[in-house]
């Protein structure tokens, strides 16, 4: 198992390098000249040239990439033009809200989704199955921005239970978490259900019953334990999507998180911030995949012993 984990971690390094290169190149493909933007439309050619040299934009692209990477390894992510501050100091305070939001959404969505999926599979074709699947389908179909606005209207404006926007107290996280987790809950519910239905038909489940095992144990220790392998994979991919997908929720609820920072930075052509954020989102995807792979190895002995 230790060998497996080390192998997975090592294989993530070249992947991250390739991604960093691609992000760097794509940012430079975006039309618009940052030096011209900074200098202003009425600046002379010479002024623009000076700024370009200051920013190091006159060097060949490959050289710029190496300078940038060297900076990253020294903890220097560049300078934000818009905020007139180092990129790191712009991004850091934005982490907390997004991460708390992601974790909250993921926790409730996973628990409820998996629970609904198991219930639906065990009660297949019965009213509970239909109820669970109606909840799941609604969760997938409702657009997040609409759900967010409806929640604000009902719970914040009409009932006054939660704040309408911002992050002033712990309660502030409730409505955004619901908005963000809804789709994942639905996906997990449907996925768990189909995976459970498949596993409940397996021969080893029949063996478990033939042993005299009680039905809840058969369902959890045999069917669900095997479904878990697939459920973890899907859940992992969803967390990755959540962090980046926070853009919409953060905008609706005016939360100063990473998602909104990304939108703002793109609008202001704040390239260094965009670049750093994209790198972070990629890294986060890779780390989550890594965790999923490792958990997967724990859950599936076939993977572990190869």
């Amino acid at each position: 198992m230790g060998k497996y984990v080390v192998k997975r971690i090592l294989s993530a390094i070249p992947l991250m390098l390739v991604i960093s290169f691609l992000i760097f190149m794509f940012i430079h493909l975006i039309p618009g000249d940052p030096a011209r933007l900074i200098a202003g439309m009425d600046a002379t050619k010479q002024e623009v040239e000076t700024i370009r040299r200051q920013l190091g934009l006159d060097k060949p692209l490959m050289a710029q990439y190496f300078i940038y990477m060297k900076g990253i390894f020294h903890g220097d992510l560049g300078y934000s033009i818009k905020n007139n501050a180092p990129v790191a100091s712009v991004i850091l305070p934005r982490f907390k809200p997004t991460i708390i939001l992601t974790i909250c959404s993921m926790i409730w969505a996973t628990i409820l989704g998996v629970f609904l999926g198991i219930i639906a599979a065990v009660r297949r074709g019965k009213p509970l199955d239909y109820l669970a699947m109606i909840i799941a389908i609604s969760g997938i179909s409702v657009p997040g921005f609409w759900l967010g606005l409806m929640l604000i209207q009902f719970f914040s404006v009409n009932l006054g239970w939660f704040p309408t926007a911002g992050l002033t107290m712990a309660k502030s996280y409730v409505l955004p978490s619901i908005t963000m987790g809804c789709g994942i809950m639905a996906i997990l519910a449907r996925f768990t259900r189909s995976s459970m239905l498949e596993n409940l038909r397996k021969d080893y489940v029949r063996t478990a019953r033939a042993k005299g095992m009680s039905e809840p144990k058969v369902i959890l220790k045999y069917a669900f334990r095997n479904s878990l392998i697939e459920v973890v994979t899907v859940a992992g991919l969803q967390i990755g999507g959540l962090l980046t997908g926070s853009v919409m929720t953060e905008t609706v609820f005016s939360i100063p998180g990473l998602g909104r920072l990304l939108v703002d930075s793109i609008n202001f052509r704040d390239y260094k911030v965009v670049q750093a954020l994209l790198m972070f989102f990629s890294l986060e995807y890779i780390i989550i995949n890594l965790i999923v792979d490792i958990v997967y190895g724990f859950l599936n002995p076939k993977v572990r012993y190869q």
Partner: protein
Amino acid sequence: MGEKVLEVEHLRTEFKQEKKKYVTAINDVSFTLNEGEIVGLVGESGCGKSVTSLSIMRLLGDTSGRVTQGKILFKGQDVLSLSNKQMRNLRGGRMSMIFQDPMSSLNPVTRIETQMMETLLLHRTKDKAQARRMAAEMLKKVGIPDVETTLRSYPHQLSGGMCQRVMIAMSMSCDPQLLIADEPTTALDVTIQAQILELMKKLQREEKTTILLITHDLGVVAQMCSRVLVMYAGRIVEEAPVHELFYNHRHPYTQGLIDCIPKIGSGVRRLPSIRGSVPDLALMPAGCKFAPRCPFASDECRKNEPELLPYEGDPTHLVRCFRTKEVLS
């Protein structure tokens, strides 16, 4: 002849097809298993062998099937009237089962030791260390060479033959009085098959377990069983001691099955087969269910269904046919 272990009387199991529409998978199945005997249950695929075994174990729950008529007595106790909890105590303990495909019958994500101990902890002991010792002992009994390694293994690390040994060890670990073996060797290759059968026979001799051996292989029956039940289209069509069945069978279906066994030196080039196939459950013919495929069928056969009756007054040889006299052994 020992005590009666299992008595099945007029068992009928139906499957739900659509809303409120049921088809009968097995009908009027009656037989008795005595202590310490191995009885074969043979027939083509789809004739109701597995449904019979699942009905006895009350494991139809995960299908749409249910027993609608009849009685199943295990040691004189009515299995069908037991509560679910009482039934669970019986299953895996005094009444256990092994299945066709050993590789898929074991839980792929847990170690062999856990799976074996589960059964023991449910029925024999509350002490984990003792359960593990018993599991190890049982594995030794079924001829597994490296018991410790096997206990620590996952099913995918073992071969099919090994898995079936584990399954047998598991199902025999609580000293069952009845073992239902549903095609235990079909998925294994021939050399392993012989070993597994020999093992089952050995355990049966030592523990005096009654075995209901479900198979479609008459060779296995000849080697293992003392008595045979032949099933066709959800009914028992012939029941006889094994010698009587091979040399003096009276049902044309049994004859068909025996004719299908290749014989060395018989000079026949083309192996005979029974023409047609088992009828669809929803489209059962009237009269004798075998009549459409039977070379001896008369108008009477197509109109009325014969009953399972003793042949020439012999209570050990029962046959369901009007034309027993014409079937030549």
